[in-house]
């Protein structure tokens, strides 16, 4: 970027500045620490200069927005055209209660829906299963059958909203229900837009809602890719997620590396299943965490785009531009929320959200201040949504594309992160790819070590957490926390009882039998899951059949 002579001059000037000013200052006022570093352990210098970007090549490293390698963003005009989708993750209790929360959020100017399901739903158990005790409706809405899904989207036209659903192992079943509800509303599948998470690999590594072993799980995923490419073309068939990997303790570099490594595994699986890369790759989407280390986070989003574009182009020979673009959703880091002085969380969330916007996110969830204490109250969710609206409308950061580009520091961090991520991807390739490296506990161990180190930094007060290890106060806990109605489980069980009486048992048995047969073959499962769902077979029954055919995953305990 700079000619040799200019760089020499800068180097010399820097030396003089150090002699003349820095050393003098250091004698009187030593710096706060001997060494500064980012969360990923990248050393942070006192200042950055053109010297740090000696080999920087604007067109090769950045290009223009909407242009390879997409470092500056996936669209040419970014937020000058349209803001990101403001999408608050919501769901609790019954589908009636969650439907009300959805309508409230849409009334407040939210632009997309994001469904949280309770744990029994995510693990494929009906609400009346013995393992569902105490969990029904707790961390999300309870969905047992198409009946619940009909209620969940009652009065919400599915061709007018895009809906993201955090569902993994039973993703095919929930998507089938969504398609069936749309059909009842008179909406064809090709008019639907939204996302299913459908990312099993990170469930094994970090999130824990797996059901089946890796092989049949990957088949379910590629069946969804294949089915949607033909029938639900605007649906994001997977959201390859670093969010939970980060929450479990990974650093920024590990978050990107492990997520992209998982991405490679999905693309490879689909290619191996005979799909054309440009047929499904444009519908892959990603999901990242926005953590506290501001500039490293901005750099992280930029570098994720750059690496994915290179991977798709060079490794998978994708031809379509759409296949090269890494589009992503962001959520602020839940793990950084404190139970102490919860109002302070509003600020943490705002800075994290800003990093996501400066990093070019396509959609955003901002956490609520009370989430270290309970599910968010309506009031807390409103502040979180308003935070996004302030960033979008009031502070001017959306008027130009990728405003931090060209910052010596940000570009250097972006380059450094890239080097670290490629090293990890290399290591994972050597272990035989992401599924193998998970089987061997590699990712889990790396994450665990980072999590433990983070804890130790807080306990030694090397890292300050305001209100936790410094600036503590005596305080009363907030009184307006949300409590899930404990009767929700009883109500769900009654609904199930009713459903089992009302539906046509012959039709249920027949569709489930067909499903079992197809599960034992290599045919695409989606059409048969849709038929079962429409016959009002329950989520637990459908997953039960698949459990019998596929078996269940046994967790590797790594510590």
């Amino acid at each position, binding site marked *: 970027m700079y000619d040799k002579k200019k760089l020499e001059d800068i180097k010399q000037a820097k030396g003089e500045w150090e002699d003349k000013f820095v050393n003098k200052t250091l004698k009187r006022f030593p710096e706060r620490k001997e060494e500064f570093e980012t969360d990923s352990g990248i050393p942070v210098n006192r200042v950055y200069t053109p010297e740090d970007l000696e080999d920087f090549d604007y067109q090769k490293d950045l290009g223009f927005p909407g242009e390879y390698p997409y470092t500056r963003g996936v669209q040419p005009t970014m937020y000058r055209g349209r803001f990101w989708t403001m999408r608050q993750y919501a769901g609790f209790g019954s589908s009636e209660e969650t439907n009300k929360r959805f309508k409230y959020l849409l009334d407040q100017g939210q632009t997309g829906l994001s469904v949280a399901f309770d*744990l029994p739903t995510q693990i494929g158990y009906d609400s009346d299963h013995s393992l569902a005790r105490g969990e029904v409706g707790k961390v999300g809405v309870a969905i047992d059958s198409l009946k619940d899904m009909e209620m969940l989207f009652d009065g919400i036209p599915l061709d007018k909203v895009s809906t993201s659903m955090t569902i993994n192992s039973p993703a095919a079943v929930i998507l089938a229900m969504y398609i069936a509800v749309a059909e009842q509303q008179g909406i064809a599948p090709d008019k639907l837009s939204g996302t299913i998470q459908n990312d099993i690999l990170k469930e094994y590594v970090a999130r824990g809602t797996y059901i089946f072993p890796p092989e049949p799980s990957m088949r379910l995923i590629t069946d969804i890719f294949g089915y949607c490419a033909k029938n639900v073309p605007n649906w994001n068939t997977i959201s390859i997620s670093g969010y939970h990997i980060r929450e479990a303790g990974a650093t920024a570099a590990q978050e990107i590396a492990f997520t992209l490594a998982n991405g490679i595994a999905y693309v490879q699986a689909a290619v191996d299943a005979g799909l054309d890369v440009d047929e499904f790759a444009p519908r892959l989407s990603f999901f990242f965490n926005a953590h506290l280390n501001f500039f490293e986070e901005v750099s992280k989003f930029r570098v994720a785009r750059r690496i994915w574009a290179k991977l798709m182009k060079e490794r998978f020979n994708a031809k379509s531009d759409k296949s090269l673009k890494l589009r992503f959703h962001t959520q602020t880091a839940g793990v950084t929320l404190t139970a102490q002085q919860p109002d302070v969380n509003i600020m943490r969330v705002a800075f994290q959200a800003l990093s996501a916007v400066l990093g070019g996110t396509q959609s955003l969830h901002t956490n609520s201040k009370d989430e270290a204490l309970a599910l968010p109250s309506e009031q807390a969710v409103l502040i979180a949504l308003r935070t996004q609206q302030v960033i979008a409308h009031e502070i001017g950061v959306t008027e130009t594309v990728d405003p931090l580009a060209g910052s010596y520091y940000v570009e250097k961090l972006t380059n450094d992160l890239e080097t670290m991520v490629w090293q990890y991807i290399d290591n994972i390739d050597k272990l035989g790819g992401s599924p193998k490296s998970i089987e061997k506990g590699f990712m889990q161990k790396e994450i665990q070590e980072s999590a433990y180190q983070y804890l130790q930094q807080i306990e030694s007060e090397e890292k300050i957490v305001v209100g936790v290890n410094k600036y503590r106060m005596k305080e009363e806990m907030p009184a307006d926390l949300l409590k899930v109605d404990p009767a929700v489980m009883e109500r769900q069980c009654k609904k199930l009882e009713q459903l089992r009486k009302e539906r046509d048992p012959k039709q249920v048995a027949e569709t489930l039998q067909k499903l079992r047969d197809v599960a034992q073959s290599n045919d695409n499962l989606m059409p048969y899951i849709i038929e079962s769902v429409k016959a009002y077979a329950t989520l637990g029954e459908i997953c039960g059949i698949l459990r019998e055919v596929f078996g269940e995953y046994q967790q590797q305990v790594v510590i």
Partner: protein
Amino acid sequence: MDKPIRVLIAKAGLDGHDRGAKVIAQSLRDAGMEVIYTGLRQTPEKIAEAAIQEDVQVVGISSLSGAHMHLFPPVVELLREKGASDILVIGGGVIPESDIPYLKEAGITEIFTSGTSTKDIISFIREHVN
């Protein structure tokens, strides 16, 4: 030298958030205790059984999904039924303050919520086991 304290760290219910459970397990291990970690998706029955089988003095149960009121008390009950009421049971996770009195009444000796220092947990265990 005293025999090291044996601790079972258990993830109760369907919750997959195990960062807390794992870093606590590692911290207790570093403090010289013998720690067994159960992994995910443990029922109260499995936890009580493992506690007795492993002959631990402490059981630490973790849940962040809001199911603690259903999952923690049965562990204490089952231990009592099996004649192991001397095992110290403690809990952690996202647990609203208003739920803590009920849990303590049910025999969970202490609840450690977000932001607790591991030093406090270690000294609590040492005080209550010896």
